[in-house]
């Protein structure tokens, strides 16, 4: 996982990678939340281009971050999910919580 904070836009970009299951999401949650509370961004961008697997634990990960950033007045954007991950996101109704965009350059 890599992250980049854009101070002027107050955007926190998280480049997720590998497999996001229950085991991994517990680790990712801590890393992301540390950065969230450090920067208090107005936009949290989760980039899925390098994610090779995701189950409902990934949905829980997104929902949990939404619950943190939404009361701060921030929003979540999801970008570059594979077709398969896009299907899981839609099945979970994630488009109601976050803007989902494909084909976004880094």
């Amino acid at each position, binding site marked *: 996982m890599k992250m980049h904070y854009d101070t002027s836009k107050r955007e926190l970009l998280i480049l997720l990678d590998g497999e996001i299951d229950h085991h991994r*999401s*517990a680790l990712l949650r801590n890393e992301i939340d540390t950065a969230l509370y450090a920067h208090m961004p107005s936009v949290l961008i989760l980039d899925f281009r390098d994610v090779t*697997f995701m*189950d409902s634990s990934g949905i829980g990960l997104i929902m949990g971050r939404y619950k943190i950033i939404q009361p701060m007045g921030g929003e979540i954007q999801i970008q570059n999910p594979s077709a398969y991950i896009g299907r899981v996101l839609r099945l979970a109704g994630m488009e109601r919580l976050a803007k989902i965009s494909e084909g976004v350059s880094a």
Partner: protein
Amino acid sequence: MKMLNEFRCVFPAVSTNESLARAALSAFLIPADPTAQELADLRTVISEAVTNAIVHGYRNSSGDVAVCLRMLPDRVLYIRVSDKGCGIPDVEQAMTPLYTTAPEEERAGLGFAIMQEFTDSLAVRSSAGNGTVLTMRRKLGQIHEEQES
């Protein structure tokens, strides 16, 4: 029913074994040559089932998870995931989308919805105190022979 192949394994209910279960399923499916989507769907299904056993069956206490995979005739994959954990007192409620008993673990309550969406049939046998057995079936599409160019 006649089966063409079978793989059984038992492992402790720890979260690092979720990826082990996915890897076992992927390896078992190699001879069937599934499409990328079929493989992705079924890896998700087994991940949800095994995670349920670990998180909800044993609530992170110790115990074993048993996985049985069978290839049945007509390219039907059979998956059984069982635990001897706390069981599900109300199966119908547990299968309701967004219902979860572990919100503090950030469970989305979508495991059963995903398993149902990505399989052709799902059966749950469980009662409080007696563990849980999930059985699922998914028919794979026909193999398309590579065309000589």
